[in-house]
């Protein structure tokens, strides 16, 4: 993209899950092996200090990408380089600890990702202790207080338990915990979709402020295009495990190329379009266990032709953006 080396590079990332029936059922009932290609060859770069957003509907593989990037899953194929280093090789070796300190994750559900029996102090100091970044009661406590302040909570809150906080406050505790190791790269998997809108605004504002102050790099996963438009620099649109479009934010929203991106943009209910009549695209996301041949979107696509159902389009650069669509590549669209 630009001359500076990107901080995060994913190349041909793929993850396949074996979801076959148990061995006995396969033998007795002659069930075939079932493989779910959750992520099937995804490549992108993120420059330091920037935000790449991944959008898509349920089951498109965006959360699997997140888990691959933080090393919670090992890729079936492909890999990721972080700051020039092969991340998945590092995760397997003794350098993994060093790398995990630099890559942290924020999960969707702030109710499920905090230990209810621990105080906030213990929750936030755990990564500090684990990575032996600080020692001594007072130093740890001072650092936890600073972290809480950086997400708009009070140092006094460290004595409380997660249930004493609202959803938005809990998500801020999760952010404080993720920031404890002073990471460079944060993977945020739907960080605000469990929150009410007024609280979502608080969390998104804090995330933006932190990015500006600390130069953080984000991978931001969301199904909400309006939120994505607010936070991102680049946007990747995923459909059934593959990227169908990857573009900078202004191009994607001003001139979406892929028919699926257009459909998603058209599907957002808009607050300022009172009584707007839309033409919703028909059909639903196909079963990822048995995806359509050719372009996975062709059964729902108004521009599909014979080539689309036979041949899978590759992600190609067209006018500064990358699109995987025969119709766009042929100039039909």
């Amino acid at each position, binding site marked *: 993209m630009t001359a500076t080396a990107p901080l995060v590079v994913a190349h041909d990332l793929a993850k396949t899950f074996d979801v076959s029936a148990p061995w006995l059922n396969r033998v007795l009932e002659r069930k075939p092996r079932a493989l779910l290609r959750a992520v099937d060859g995804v490549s992108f770069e993120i420059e330091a200090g920037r935000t790449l957003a991944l959008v898509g*509907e*349920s089951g498109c593989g965006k959360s699997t990408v997140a888990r691959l990037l933080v090393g919670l899953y090992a890729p079936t194929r492909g890999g990721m380089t972080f700051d020039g280093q092969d991340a998945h090789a590092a995760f397997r070796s003794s350098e993994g600890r060093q790398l995990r300190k630099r890559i942290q994750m924020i999960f969707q559900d702030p109710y499920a990702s905090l230990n209810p029996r621990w105080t906030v102090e213990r929750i936030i100091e755990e990564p500090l202790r684990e990575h032996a970044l600080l020692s001594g009661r007072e130093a740890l406590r001072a650092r936890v207080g600073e972290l809480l302040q950086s997400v708009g909570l009070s140092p006094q809150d460290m004595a409380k338990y997660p249930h004493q906080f*609202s*959803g*938005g*406050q809990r998500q801020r505790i999760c952010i404080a915990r993720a920031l404890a190791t002073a990471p460079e790269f944060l993977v945020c998997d739907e960080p605000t979709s469990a929150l*009410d*809108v*007024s*609280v*979502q*605004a*608080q969390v*998104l*504002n804090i995330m*933006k402020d932190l990015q500006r102050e600390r130069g953080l790099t984000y991978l931001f996963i969301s*199904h*909400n*295009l*309006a*939120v994505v*438009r*607010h936070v991102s620099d680049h946007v990747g649109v995923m459909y059934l495990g593959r990227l169908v479009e990857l573009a900078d934010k202004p191009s994607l*929203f001003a001139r979406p190329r892929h028919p699926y991106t257009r*459909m*998603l*943009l*058209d*599907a*957002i*209910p*808009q*607050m*300022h*379009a*009172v*009584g*707007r009549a*839309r033409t*919703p*695209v*028909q059909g*639903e*996301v196909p079963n990822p266990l048995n995806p359509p041949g050719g372009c996975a979107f062709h059964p729902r696509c108004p521009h599909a032709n014979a080539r689309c159902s036979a041949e899978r389009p590759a992600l190609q650069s067209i006018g500064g953006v990358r699109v995987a669509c025969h119709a766009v590549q042929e100039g039909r669209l």
Partner: protein
Amino acid sequence: MSLLQVKNLVVEFPNRRGTLRALDDISFEIAPGEILGVVGESGAGKSLTGAAIIGLLEPPGRIAGGEILLQGQRIDNLRHEQMRHIRGRRIGAIFQDPLTSLNPLYTVGRQLTETIRTHLPVGEAEARRRAIDLLKDTGIPAAEARIDHYPHQFSGGMRQRVVIALALAAEPQLIVADEPTTALDVSIQAQIIQLLKRLCRERGAAVMLITHDMGVIAETCDRVAVMYAGRIAEVGPVRDVIHQPAHPYTAGLMASIPDMASERERLNQIDGAMPRLNAIPAGCAYNPRCPRAFERCTRERPELLRAEATQAACWLHATVQALP
């Protein structure tokens, strides 16, 4: 005459430490064929309002005051058995998760024909014919074959279509739809909302659409009620509530929604959170978070007052009210 009138509705939850008032003095009306949106954040009481109307409050929750009238007839004090005849026949319900509204052990056809025959005087063959028509109307392909399938054989969006067919089966006058699209993907959401809107319009059914999504409200509803901490903060025509909100909470809520039209670096945020039911502030419940609160707001609780084009429970509009 209004189809549904809710007058001064109070819902309480008695517990060991006293009584929690979850809905406090809610009043609104729905005209025949009208789509009323009810919007608010979690815990504002929007689902509870719907549950009280269809007579499905979870105990120990109970209606502690006020009236609910359907075509002038009180339905809040009916016995369980009588309410069952109204629910389904005159008021249909659609819930968030289509899987919990369908019985997994019966085919969708059996569930539809059972609903039709419970409420309407038709035979088995006629009921089945109507069930197939309903499935066709809700856009389910190959309805003749699909009618004998079980709920798990349908996708999420198709299941919600079945639930809509079920809610419409006995031709009710009012549909209470509680977050009908929240569990669905965005591309399916648009389909379901348009379907609901079209079917209700064709049949002349009114809808009470409960959602947290202001975009859905904007595109679907005629009027909207904004709820906050168990009360209605503002109610009025959708266009006016969105473009000239009269209540500071509505204004704050609108500004906090990231939208596709504006280029703002920061979203407007409402500091703090909605109070818990056991700690509702005196006066206006919104006053600790309100940028425009003044002395009266901490002392006296505002009722709905006439604002510009809407009604808002806010003392800022007390002077407007006083004018002749």
